[in-house]
């Protein structure tokens, strides 16, 4: 598997493939290598998966979904990571619930941005790794890069006050 990805990078632009999806009005991206599958949560026999919105402490994100994204459908994002990859609970977690539309994009290396220093120093969520610009022409076409191996194990109980203030947008 690793050899295949090395070959792809050598032939490509040094960029990375991302799965892009929504949670409320926010857009997130996960490196596609970390995704095992995308399923309909209603048709999976697994234990109920937590919503990514709850893990990130996005208060009322599901209520905003219908207004901002015209009633997006939930999908179950299953991660490939295991304990050997550095995740403490990866083998146990069935995945997280996210919202459509879900897309697969290839981002060139210069579209990937680390978090600004202040944000990196102050963020309470180690799973938030950076940002990706999804359009060369629209500066506001951004997604937040998430590392599923660093997701919180439990729902965030003390959501940031400004999440509600700004309505996740």
């Amino acid at each position, binding site marked *: 598997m690793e050899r295949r990805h090395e070959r792809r990078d050598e032939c490509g632009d040094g960029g990375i493939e991302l799965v892009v999806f929504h949670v409320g009005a*926010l857009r997130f991206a996960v490196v596609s290598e970390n995704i095992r599958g995308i399923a309909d949560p209603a048709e999976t026999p697994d234990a109920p998966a937590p919503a990514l919105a709850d893990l*990130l*402490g*996005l208060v009322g994100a599901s209520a905003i979904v219908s207004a901002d994204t015209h009633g997006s459908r939930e999908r179950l994002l299953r991660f490939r990571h295991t304990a050997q990859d550095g995740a403490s609970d990866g083998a146990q977690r069935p995945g997280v619930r996210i919202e459509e539309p879900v897309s697969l994009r290839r981002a060139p290396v*210069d579209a990937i*941005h680390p*978090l*600004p*220093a*202040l*944000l990196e*120093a*102050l*963020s*309470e*969520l180690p799973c*938030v790794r950076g*940002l990706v*610009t999804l359009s060369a022409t629209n*500066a*506001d076409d*951004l997604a*937040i890069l998430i590392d599923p191996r660093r997701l919180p194990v439990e729902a965030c109980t003390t959501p*940031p*006050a*400004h*999440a509600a*203030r*700004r309505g*996740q*947008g």
Partner: protein
Amino acid sequence: MDLERTESATDVSDRDKLDMLLDRRREAGARIVEIETAKVKLVIFVVGETLLAFPARVLVEILPLTTIHFVPGCPPALEGIINVRGDIASVVRLGDLLGMTHAPSARRSAILLARGTQVRSGLRVDRVVDVMDVTEASIQAPPDSLPEPLRGLAAGVFEHQGQVVILLDLDRVFQTLLPEQR
């Protein structure tokens, strides 16, 4: 009589010479004072109803208020990030750090892109008032009457069009967000 006239003429002549010398010295002194009056360029802005300023040298750019993207996991004072021509910068609600309430977002709202010793970030302000040169001598020490946390972040005060402006220390402002570095 002639002698007296001669002495008198000499006195007048000496005084003239002395006056000329003194005048030259006064002019020279005045020129020195003018050269030595150091000026500092300041950007004056408003948060809530308070006039504040930063030295222009710590500001990279003054940007109109643009879309600020919320990023989960940040403290409330960190409003989010902006994309500045391909560079991603954080945006801090300056009023939150100063214990002030921001005015509602308006067309005149702005983001000051600031570069401190260790940190670079945008600072949200309600309105930019002026960019002007101020003599350093006109900047006085911040008075004890300034409320906290403003007093600890002020580098001085000065007057602008009859109103008091509080000059802020950018590094101290950023340090309020990074308490472990105090």
